[in-house]
């Protein structure tokens, strides 16, 4: 029988029953999980990198700011110096004016007097005197009077402004070297002026003799933490385990967590912290039975190989056997948590600091077990198939830092963490939330 070759192939393909290998799905699922993990990990690395870059940026900004402040202080110093210089110059000017008047009034020889002070360069005061020492002496006395009046005002002004810290330790005014021995009176005038100048700078010198020692700012801290907390859900636990457990009461069980957190102080108010924490979330479902009717299939519970019992809401066993044993179901979900949080200081005193914490955690599933628990035994018999390998949590909390010493700080925090993306086939309402405290002693560096 002649048949079109295309039809022959098409018909045979249609007729055939080609089935995909059943085991292939588990291989695909494993690869999907690995890919999801990698994606989350790369996301975490990306976020960490961005955070690190932000830290660096903020750190350098803070550094720049501190440099700018130093410049301001320096400018302030200069300003102070200039003020002093101007003050002295003013005094000189007054002196000169007075002298000139004296000269004019007395109609005597011209006195060419030039007092100049260059404090910043450490140069000496040069007083050139030509003649008439007496006149000068007289002038000096009057100048001194004016000088001290103006000086006391200046001192008061400087005290008020508090800009006198950090002035040079010794006023770089050299004394009367340029004066000849024959001009003792003039020397004494110069000395008096310098003495006045010293009085003017008294406060500055005092402040300067006690230089401010700035303590090294330790911005980083690492804290090993240990915590206890309770887990709960907004809706019934039973739904996430099995639909038939809907009416079974569930209670939260206390769990522990431990790990490390690393914090960086961006500013007095703000710090960022990340860490690695191992934690477990535990729930107890009550009023169940272990039945030997094994054809009861749970929607989410996967029993370990060789387990010949099933959780059930009824106490019926196979016919001929006694009633099923009453048990509780303990579900434990273990995570490795990578928190990334911002802390904002609400209260900031030298020793004590209280912070508000907000952030999120990346959670990687480490433990997935279901135990049957009676008064006599507790045995791991199953796991669940609806937990995602990676999930997230929103974190909120309050913590306190109490400085035990310059290096060590006690930290305690109250936290609330809402998990989401926990289950593959349940909405986020069923995701657990945990609340608890953790504490530790941190090391600052």
């Amino acid at each position, binding site marked *: 029988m*002649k048949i079109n070759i*295309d039809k022959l192939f098409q018909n045979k393909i249609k007729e055939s029953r*080609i089935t*995909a290998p059943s085991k292939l799905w588990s291989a*695909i699922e494993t690869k999907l999980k690995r890919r999801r993990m990698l994606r989350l990990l790369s996301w975490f690395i990306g976020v960490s990198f961005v955070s690190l870059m932000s830290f660096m940026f903020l750190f350098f900004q803070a550094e720049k700011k501190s440099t700018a402040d130093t410049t301001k202080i320096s400018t302030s110093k200069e300003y102070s110096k200039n003020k002093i210089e101007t003050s002295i110059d003013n005094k000189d000017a007054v002196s000169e004016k007075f002298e000139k008047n004296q000269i004019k009034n007395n109609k005597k020889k011209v006195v060419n007097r030039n007092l100049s002070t260059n404090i910043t360069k450490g140069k000496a005061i040069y007083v050139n005197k030509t003649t008439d020492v007496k006149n000068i002496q007289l002038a000096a006395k009057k100048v001194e009077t004016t000088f001290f009046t103006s000086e006391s005002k200046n001192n008061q002004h400087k005290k008020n402004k508090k800009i006198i810290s950090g002035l040079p330790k010794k006023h770089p005014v050299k004394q009367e070297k340029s004066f000849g021995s024959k001009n003792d009176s003039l020397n004494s005038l110069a000395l008096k002026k310098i003495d006045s100048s010293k009085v003017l700078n008294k406060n500055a010198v005092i402040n300067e003799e006690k230089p401010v020692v700035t303590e090294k700012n330790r911005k980083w801290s690492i804290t090993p933490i240990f915590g206890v907390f309770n887990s709960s859900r907004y809706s019934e636990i039973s739904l996430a385990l099995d639909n038939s457990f809907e009416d079974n009461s569930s209670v939260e069980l206390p769990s522990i967590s431990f790990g490390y957190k690393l914090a960086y102080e961006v500013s007095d108010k703000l710090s960022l912290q990340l860490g690695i924490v191992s934690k477990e979330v535990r729930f107890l479902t009550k009023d169940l039975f272990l039945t030997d009717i094994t054809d009861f299939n749970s929607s989410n519970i996967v029993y370990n190989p060789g387990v010949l019992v099933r959780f059930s809401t009824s106490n019926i066993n196979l016919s001929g056997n006694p009633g099923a044993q009453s048990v509780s179901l303990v579900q434990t979900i273990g995570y490795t948590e990578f928190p990334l949080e911002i802390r904002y200081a609400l209260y900031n005193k030298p020793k004590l600091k209280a912070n508000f914490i907000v952030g999120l955690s990346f959670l990687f599933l480490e433990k997935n077990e279901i135990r049957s628990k009676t008064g006599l035994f507790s045995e791991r018999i199953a796991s669940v198939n609806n937990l995602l390998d990676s999930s997230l949590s929103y974190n909120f909390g309050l913590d306190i830092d109490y400085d035990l010493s310059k290096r060590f700080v006690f930290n305690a925090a109250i936290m609330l963490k809402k998990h989401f993306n926990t289950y593959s*086939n349940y909405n986020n309402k069923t995701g657990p939330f945990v609340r608890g405290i953790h504490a530790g002693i941190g090391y600052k560096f």
Partner: protein
Amino acid sequence: MSAQAEIYKLFADKLFRVCIKYSKNYQDAQDTLQDSFLMIFKDIKKFKHKGSFEGWAKRVTMNVALQKFRDKSVLQFDVLEDSKFAEEDVFVDVDEKNISLDFLLSLIKQLTPKYQVVFNLYVLDKYSHLEISELLKISIGTSKSNLSRARKILQEKINNSTKKSL
């Protein structure tokens, strides 16, 4: 069961058929199917609901299979523009019931890669010559002539095997 598992359950067999036509053996077909599903789940947001999901998934699988095919084979097509020759229908004188699919698939796999791809695309996956030319970046004439050659070779092989069995 997760949504992904549902999708696998629904389409695995259909897509495996596609894979098996373009793979040298069963193991290769499994690998192709696995890669195809990973690609489908990765690109599922790209599905615009313009056609059926099955059609889209098949196209993804086809692309994965062809890529694998390309990676393993050098696809150099005979550039023949004799369309009259290419349009000819080819017949074989056999009893259809006595021929198994495995036998037919084994015959396809004996073809050179260039004929195998064009024959699969046109006859088994019902692509048009225009679609094949776009997919393989060859001319329509080349697609037709390669198909014609493939048909002739298969006809010869089927006839030979029938004679032997007689």
